[in-house]
């Protein structure tokens, strides 16, 4: 902008000196650029791929240890265009993660609300809940397989076991964070327990539940895949084991990439849900500080 702009003349001091804010520094300009990661992510990925390719060429590694990036890319394209991979593996894992999450939401949010509302219940139930978390959960997989078989059920339980804890902790914390004045307000309005829950506690806790969901969706994915890995007949974890046994290392990389994209997609759905479910919350509002 020039100083001759008639509509927005720069303010002046009493001595007539023009006052303008200092121009933003480079780091401020970068920070304020919404599209920054749209430039930096591809750039960093490209750098990584070049380094990978150079390393493979220079060291002349066996393709059974580290295949070249283009070989991995080719396998990856083959894999994601293969309906068998979708129907058998991706769908199975997706089903397990979704069912596991559903179970975790019912258990985690339900128990979290009870723990948050009742200090008595908290003191009675907490030792048992913590016990489910301090046991190395991977060690439970053989037990679940023994009880529920090699099918999806054992993985659903595993996913739920991993995912319910962050939901429970966040939910109970959220319920407890409802300000005393909010309770007072509902009391003065003669709210019933039910009204208090629907109109105050639940909306107030929603951001906490969604923060728990971000952790839970990642944990559920890990739970399902580890379960398949240790004893399954289908799913992305089982797929990776098959590829390893067959020494199809380029496809193994492709499978890992599919798992990463799988997790990324689920995570994005959850963060997207924030905008729908809690559009009023600070974490969703555009940042106001420069």
């Amino acid at each position, binding site marked *: 902008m020039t100083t001759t702009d008639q509509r927005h003349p720069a303010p002046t001091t009493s001595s007539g000196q023009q006052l303008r804010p200092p121009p933003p520094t480079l780091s401020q300009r970068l920070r304020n650029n919404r599209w920054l990661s749209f430039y930096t992510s591809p750039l960093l990925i490209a750098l990584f791929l070049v380094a990978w390719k150079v390393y493979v060429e220079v060291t002349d590694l066996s393709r059974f240890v580290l295949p070249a990036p283009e070989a991995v890319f080719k396998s990856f394209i083959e894999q994601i265009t293969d309906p068998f991979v979708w129907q058998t593996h991706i769908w199975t894992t997706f089903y397990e993660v979704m069912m596991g999450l559903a179970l975790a939401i019912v258990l985690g949010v339900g128990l979290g609300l009870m723990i948050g509302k009742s200090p008595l219940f908290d003191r009675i139930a907490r030792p048992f809940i913590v016990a489910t978390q301090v046991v190395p959960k991977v060690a439970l997989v053989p037990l679940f397989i023994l009880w529920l078989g090699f099918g999806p059920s054992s993985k659903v339980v595993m996913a739920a076991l991993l995912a319910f804890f962050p939901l429970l902790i966040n939910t109970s914390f959220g319920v407890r964070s409802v*300000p005393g*004045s*909010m309770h*007072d*307000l509902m*009391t*003065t*309005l*003669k*709210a019933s327990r039910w*009204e208090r829950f629907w*109109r*105050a506690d639940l*909306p*107030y806790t*929603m951001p906490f539940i969604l923060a728990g969901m971000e952790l839970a969706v990642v944990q559920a994915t890990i739970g399902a895949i580890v379960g398949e890995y240790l004893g399954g007949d289908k799913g992305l974890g089982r797929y990776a084991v098959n590829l390893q046994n067959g020494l199809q290392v380029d496809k193994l990389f492709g499978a890992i990439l599919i798992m990463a994209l799988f997790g990324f997609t689920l995570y994005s759905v959850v963060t997207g849900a924030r905008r729908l479910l*809690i559009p*009023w*919350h*600070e974490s969703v*509002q555009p940042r106001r500080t420069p």
Partner: protein
Amino acid sequence: MSAIKVEGVSKVFAGAGGQSMVALSDVSLDIADGEFVVLLGPSGCGKTTLLRIIGQLESPTVGRVRLDHGERQENADRPLGFVFQEATLMPWRSTGANVALPLEMAGVGRRERTEKVREMLSLVGLPDAENKLPHQLSGGMRQRVSIARALAHDPQVLLMDEPFGALDAQTRDMMNAELQRIWLENRKTVVFVTHSVSEAVFLADRIVMLGTKPGHIHSITEVTLPRPRTLAMTESAEFRALATELRRQIGEVQQDNDIRPAVSA
């Protein structure tokens, strides 16, 4: 006829280490219909506790509070209006929806709600804020919204717990003038807690000064300054004399407070 009758109310809290703390001791007070009463006193005198007991947020250990005429439980079909220190708006509700909350809970229909919300928002001077979210408003505006909410269901009694304590001095003066205007328009019975002497003198028909250890009524002062009172009147000799007298009393009460532990030790 008295709108609120406080009869021999005492309140004891269980303190740390098994000790009990007497917050209020044998407080009796009659508040007339349409009267503006200010509870004034230093911190720790139990003025907020008394307000919360009147508002049924606490129950008295001894004594009782009667609203209108009759037992408060029986006569409690219409909730009180309560304005808290913080605006206590629900951040997920728009300004209008916040004001509508008491109406929703009373089962008022949508059309009537919208009408009432608009009326209340213009009463508090925010006719254009209906669709804004609370975090888009300033502290003073938020407190105006909370006053609109407290008045939305047309309560007979409005209880206010240091509602302007968190605001800066200029905004506070303006809000006091606004509150007086609103009160003159609808003449609710108001019980207002503050520790600001000038706020008390500006607003009150009657100032109830509370003393500490334990909380009790120290004095009751009628304020006969004509209404509507203006900010210019706060400079008048009458206003200043009253304020000086009340400050002297607060000093007395606090000195009391400082000496007591030394005596009992």
